[in-house]
């Protein structure tokens, strides 16, 4: 039953690397840029910081629109942008662009929620000490929200992994694509099984690492 695996072992390895590449790049972009959008959403809604309803509403609307579009459509829509940014419309490099955009919108909202959960009193105490807004954001707000942010990075990573499975449709490769092409289209069930098992393992691994790191940073309930 497992005769196909041996002959395709190099393709499986390549697919694994492609998935890893797409998820890693998109996740890093999401955490950095999405995180900044999260900070923007939080600070424009708080009277302690830079309360600005117009900026907050416009940013929120743009992020919601991105989140409303099914990833498949988003991918096709943004492929021309991939051509401009990474110089190609196919392959994992091309998929990284729409994947990053979707992840940024996804993570921005989660980051905003994490920041909003920080006890307002702690922020007020920091202001009462005479600290500047930027110092409060980086030395109080983010460290206080960190365990929750890490949990939300975990959630984002697993969602990005799910999105990346659709990359095959534009020649992006990856484990999802391999499972579809060999496992489904060529009836090589063993390939499908291996791909699915690998994805399950990756998800478990991400969750396990995420939980462990979050717990390490969480001093609130220890």
């Amino acid at each position: 039953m497992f005769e196909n695996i041996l002959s395709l072992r190099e393709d499986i390895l390549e697919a694994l690397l492609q998935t890893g590449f797409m998820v890693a790049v998109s996740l890093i972009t999401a955490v950095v840029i999405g995180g900044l959008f999260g900070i923007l959403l939080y600070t424009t809604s708080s009277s302690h910081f830079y309360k600005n309803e117009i900026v907050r509403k416009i940013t929120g609307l743009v992020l919601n629109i991105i989140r409303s579009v099914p990833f498949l459509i988003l991918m096709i829509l943004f492929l021309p942008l991939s051509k401009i940014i990474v110089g190609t419309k196919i392959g994992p490099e091309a998929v990284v662009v729409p994947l990053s955009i979707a992840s940024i919108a996804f993570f921005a909202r989660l980051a905003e929620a994490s920041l909003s959960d920080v006890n307002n009193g702690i922020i007020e105490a920091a202001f009462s000490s005479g600290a500047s807004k930027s110092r409060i954001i980086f030395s109080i707000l983010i460290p206080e929200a960190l365990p929750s942010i890490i949990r939300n990075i975990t959630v984002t990573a697993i969602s990005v992994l799910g999105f990346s499975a659709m990359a095959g449709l534009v020649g992006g490769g990856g484990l999802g694509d391999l499972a579809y092409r060999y496992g489904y289209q060529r009836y090589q069930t063993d390939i499908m099984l291996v791909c699915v098992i690998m994805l399950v393992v990756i998800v478990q691994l991400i969750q396990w690492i995420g939980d462990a790191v979050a717990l390490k940073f969480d001093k609130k309930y220890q």
Partner: protein
Amino acid sequence: MIDFQNVSVTFKQNRKTVEAVRNVSFQINDGDIFGIVGGSGAGKSTLLRTINQLQKVSEGNVIVDSKAVNNLKSTELRLLRQNVGMIFQHFNLAENKTVYQNIEFVLKVAGWKKNKIQSRISELLEFVKLSDKADTYPSKLSGGQKQRVSIARALANNTKILLCDEPTSALDAETTSSVLELLKKVNNDFGVTIVIITHELDVVKSICNKVVVMSDGKVVESGDVYSVFTNPQNDFTKQLIEHTNNFDIPAEITDIIKGPVLKLTYLGDNAVESILSDTAKEYNIRYNIIHGKIEYIASKPLGILYVNIIGEDKNIKLVVSALKEKTFSAEVIYNV
């Protein structure tokens, strides 16, 4: 000195305009432990926050050390806040920072040099008796310990003013008194002016020297604590004080006693014992003491005694009027 000059604060809440503070004027002198009391929604918390401008004023001026803080630019405002400490009901320590890091943050903000920070923090922790807790996270501390850390944090930059927002309302009675003792020590050892807002009159009684009573955004009574507590002028204040001073005579006692029950209040050195024995002889009546206590308000004693008078009606009338003259106040609170 902190000087409130015709301060009003209004803000919009759910499209309604709320007048939280209305035309308030009073002064807090250097070295005072100044109480601001009132029920919830009286505007005391809002007023307190105008001192370090966590709350902007709508009208009037708040003068701190001869500067109108409501006109400060943001850099000047940060400098002011570095010199005015604040503690809170729920402590508001950063949860993911150790005790040491919480205090360190404030010192870094104030631009302390690295080599001085460490010695300052150990000095502060020694003062609040938590030297062994430097590397502990707040979640491992008791409420009283958390409040002591936040006092250390608030004083870290050698602040001369300490604002306290209901500092003991989340603490049990025993911890409350230890925190209040610490605040007294802060005032005494470092000459820090303390402004304390609370709904607990016991807090004011035990540590404040001056008090204002707020109701509905206005100051309804002010003065030194002893005179406000022993001789309240405003109805709201009277009600507030009655509430803590009153003693309900148990039904078991009211069932068996005959004659009136008097509540006698006497101040300071009034030796009530001899008044009672003298009047008993003079008017040929007997006293039955039901309840008595001595309260210390701003370190001065206030005695309260509930006595039942037994004797002939005409003598009772005479003795009541005699007692009214000889004690601070004597009122008949129960009569069969």
